């Protein structure tokens, strides 16, 4: 069969107006249905003609899945809320600035206007072999093209490799893990609420899935408890370009300090493993210690223990070490404390306006 990587295949477009209807449609069509939020991930798959669903369930008309709502214990963000809305939301900025910082660094303004939080956390990996339609393990084949002696794997995993060495690409997820967010999933068996880090599935459990969603399931909301509101946050994303780029790596931390001592802390790192990583060993090790450079050094070294580099990504080990160091020692600094990163953001704001 000759190949063409353009022109969306024909499918039935279903546009429900309620979450209930959406879920019914998804359950009705099962694995033949593709659920689309903002479309930023879906449209690539479709236009490349690699995914050919019979039915596309477009959630853009489901108003109840949009918006940020205060709850008795924090906030609930509808899965269809755009990243731009989250970044600009006064309540999020005030209490959960970590998330605002993270989503503001996603992709580009145009993409953030369209992309949703539900889509950002549920997006597929960006391994260029897999996305290019190569028949790898994750695509149902029996080889990993990135993990060969000459495979091009600069952007791939240093942890958690299990046949697949792709990394999870989301910027919002580490912030949500650090904020102890809960994901609300509607399944055929009813509603399930899971911890952020438990939403994701590693290749060791199921190499063809990246999260817990099964055909018919629907992520409807993400809840952030008040426990970490107003905590001291640190987020940093390292990327090749200053806009429109996935992370080479990102780190997020939320900390409660008692004087200069770390009383409580949650730290997560992404783009290092097929699953977003929460660094619980590091959290435990730094708890009760001073939030200073020495603790940061120790934390960074601990974080990279067990890392296994591929041919072209050994740099990720010092990068993770240093990012975790900063997230611990520098917890409380605004993202991109560098004036230059701030300038880039200011420039982006200017371009936007």
């Amino acid at each position, binding site marked *: 069969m000759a190949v063409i990587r353009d022109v969306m295949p*024909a499918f039935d477009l279903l546009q429900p107006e309620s979450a209930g209807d959406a879920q019914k449609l998804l359950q009705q069509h099962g694995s033949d249905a593709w659920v689309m939020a903002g479309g930023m991930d879906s449209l690539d798959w479709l236009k490349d003609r690699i995914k050919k669903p019979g039915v596309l369930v477009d959630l853009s008309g489901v108003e109840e899945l949009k918006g940020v709502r205060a709850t008795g214990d924090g906030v609930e963000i509808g899965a269809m809320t755009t990243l731009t809305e989250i970044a600009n939301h006064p309540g999020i900025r005030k209490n959960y600035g970590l998330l605002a910082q993270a989503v503001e660094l996603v992709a580009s303004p145009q993409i953030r206007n369209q992309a949703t939080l539900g889509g950002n956390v549920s997006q597929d990996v960006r391994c260029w072999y897999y996305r290019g339609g190569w028949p790898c393990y994750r695509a149902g084949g029996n080889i990993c093209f990135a993990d060969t002696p000459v495979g091009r794997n600069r952007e791939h995993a240093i942890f958690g490799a299990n046949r697949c060495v792709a990394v999870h690409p989301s910027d919002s997820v580490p912030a949500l893990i650090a904020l102890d967010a809960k994901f609300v999933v509607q399944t055929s068996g009813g509603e399930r609420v899971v911890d952020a880090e438990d939403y994701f599935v590693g290749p060791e459990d199921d190499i063809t899935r990246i999260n817990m969603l099964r055909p018919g399931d629907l992520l409807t909301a993400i809840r952030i408890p008040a426990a970490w509101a107003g905590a001291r946050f640190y987020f940093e994303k390292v990327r090749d370009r200053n806009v429109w780029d996935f992370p080479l790596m990102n780190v997020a931390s939320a900390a409660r300090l008692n004087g200069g001592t770390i009383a409580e802390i949650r730290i997560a790192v992404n783009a290092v493993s097929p699953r977003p990583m929460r660094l619980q060993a590091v959290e435990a090790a730094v708890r009760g210690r001073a939030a200073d450079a020495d603790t940061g050094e120790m934390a960074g070294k601990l974080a990279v223990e067990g890392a296994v580099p591929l041919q072209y990504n050994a740099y990720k080990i010092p990068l993770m070490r*240093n990012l975790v160091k900063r997230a611990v020692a520098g917890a409380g600094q605004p993202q991109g404390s560098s004036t230059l990163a701030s300038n880039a953001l200011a420039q982006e704001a200017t371009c936007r306006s």
Partner: protein
Amino acid sequence: MADTPQESAMKAEQEKPRPYGTGYRLIGHDYKTPDLIAKVTGRSKYAEDFRAEGMLFCRLVLSQMPHGRIRRIDASRALAMPGVKAVLTADDIPAQADFLNDNGQTIKANQWGERALTNEPMFFGAPILAVAAVDELTCAEAIEKIDIEMEPLPFVIDPLESLRPGGKNPHADGNVWTRGKSGEELTELKWTDADFAEYEQGRLPMGKPMGEWSYGDVEGGFRDAALVLDESFVTPDVSHQCLEPRTAMAYWQNGKLYLHTGTQSTYQTVPAIARWLNLRTDQVVLISEYTGGGFGSKVTGTVIMIIPAILSRKLNAPVMMRISREEEHYIGRARPSVLGRAKIGFAKDGRITAIDYYTVTNSGGYENNDNGASSAGIVSLLYQPPAMRWRGVSVMTNTPTRSAQSAPGGLQGITIIEPILAQAARKLGVDQVALRRVNSPEGKAEYGPPSHGQRTHVTSCFLKQALDLGAEQFQWKERLARPRRVGSKARGVGVALSCYVGGTIGFDGLIVITPEGRVRFHSGIGNLGTESVIDVHRAGAEVLGVPWEICDVVWGDTSKGMPYTCASGGSQTTHAMTRAAYAVATECKQKLKEVAAKSLGGSPEDYEVGNARVYRKGGGAGLSFAQAGQKAIALGGIYDGHEAPDDVHKATRAAVAAVAGQGLVVAARDKAPRDGNTFSYVASFAEVEVDLDTGKYYITDFLAYGDVGTVLHPHSLGGQMLGRSTLGIAHAIGQKWVYDPEYGAPVARRFYQNKPPTILDVPVNMQWAALNIPDPETPVGARGVGEPPVGGGCASILNALSDALGDDNFERAPVYADTILASYEAGRPLQHPLMASI
């Protein structure tokens, strides 16, 4: 040459910069170009925006092998589908034919050259067939019903691997290009194991070259040097990534092909289309009013644009061929990677004593594109070594077709040499600007190897002044005095010299003064974003002394009469076509006087032209331009285009005939003398801040200071200076190919994977300036500017990085965060030293 090099250098130093527009009404002043509103409001129509009644669509099938031979194509299931109209294969494409160039020389068809479709694809992504149908969805579904049986053939994507003993050839005929009796020929070349002895140490092997030249006493230069450095450096393969892919729409009417597409050169594309389709040029009408970028990849279009033309003729219906971003990645052309090694001797003051330079160019799958060879000429001009040797080899690989990309060879040569200069300045304790100044060309500088015992020279060069004024504006000395290291942040500043060719001569202009009194310039230049399509005619309006408001420019449709025009490549247009505009406007004044004399009596010398009138000197009777246009029609013959001058190109004569009877029709050829070859020059300055914890760096400041002759249009010049600097910067900071060598296939095929720079990757206050010293060898003094800033954009960033980090962090571009972090951690370069496309 009237002056010795020393005399011309002294004269050059005496020339002073002047404010833009000095002495002119129009030249050097900003204005609103007639295409501006359409461009900024989205009303401009590009090829993809056109529709014609009954239009069909076609889509391509690209090779999924880096090298193979088609055994069998079974399209029966596709052709049986409703709505599918035709399948086109390589067998339907006209054979390559010899052709006559502008000078009447026969250019032999290249048997290894690229065709629109092929049965032996030479790279992953080469087009092998096309399907036409009623819409694109039907095309796509039909394509997936076609069975193609291909025989895999040996492939190689790394030029050095091909040169190894026993290395694979990309083609049965060989792996390297040589100059044969009938032009470029492919032959086999393998080096020895001994040649590769230092490969693992990152030193470029230098086996038997296929080309070489030298001048001066190279060994003597090294003997006399206070410092000799020998370094290897690899430049990246970089796709052009034009925002408008090479989409084309075609239909036929009355035996003529009408083709809508984007091209850099409106007039010059017609002969190319005619040649590819075996048509006469008068059988081709090209419509290309707007072009979304070219950068050398669309100088005369691309051969694949004949596919919709052939399908249209076959199906007797208009056919649109849209090209996707991924397809553009394969067929959109790319700059060849050059692997370079240079041994350079320096005197104590930083003056270069000799250069020994070797290049290996990855020329891609079809035609030769030896950017290494062209880089050597630029190196010899820009750094003025008293002795130099170049050797090199151009290697065919199974990777996409290369073509010129802004400053082809120039970028690579500058990028290979400049880091060595930066290192030398540090080792010698010489200021970076001072080292460049002592080596930079000046006046009628000589360059390249001798030909018949004589080296050629440039028309003029004032680069030392640009360097001095640039250093002042950039506050070079003040920046040097600032702290280099604050916490985990390291700061560095860099300077680089840059230049590229800047003009040709001998083209034609065409003006019509209409019976309504409008002055109409016919422009065969492409509207590729530089605005030269309009700008150059301001020189004509300046000569005629008319207000710009009564001038019109006709462009973008060859049925409207296009004079013989240069190709918009090699930064030649501004220079070449201001000369043509100057020539035709001068001739137009003469013709106006003749018309006045014939109408009002007296001789032409009794009249002068001004205020859109031709009138008797000292007052008295005269004609408005409207009246002159009417009188010209009445006079006929040479005045209204029913006759054309003998000395213009045949294409211009055809254009004159096309507009005959529309007013006073004037055509003329640029015959102004020129001593030397025209180049433009830039001094580039950059500052970076590197985060040593992450390797991430930001460009905090940038300045490009140009020696580009007379400034024609400041806004468009600024766009070129900064835009092309950014193109160069892209090579330093991130844009590249990534290939899997096991499968010979690219893995980075989209913008987010190839990473062309964004507006946020360059400084907020990126600056440019120009000397505005006219080139003495051309009437208006304007030189081209498109390509000269590119090399400096790249090299100034690399030099700023090595200023911040030291010399041992990177040996190829682009330099990513991972390069810096890994090397900084290890204390030595950790890249694969001699391979691009990782």
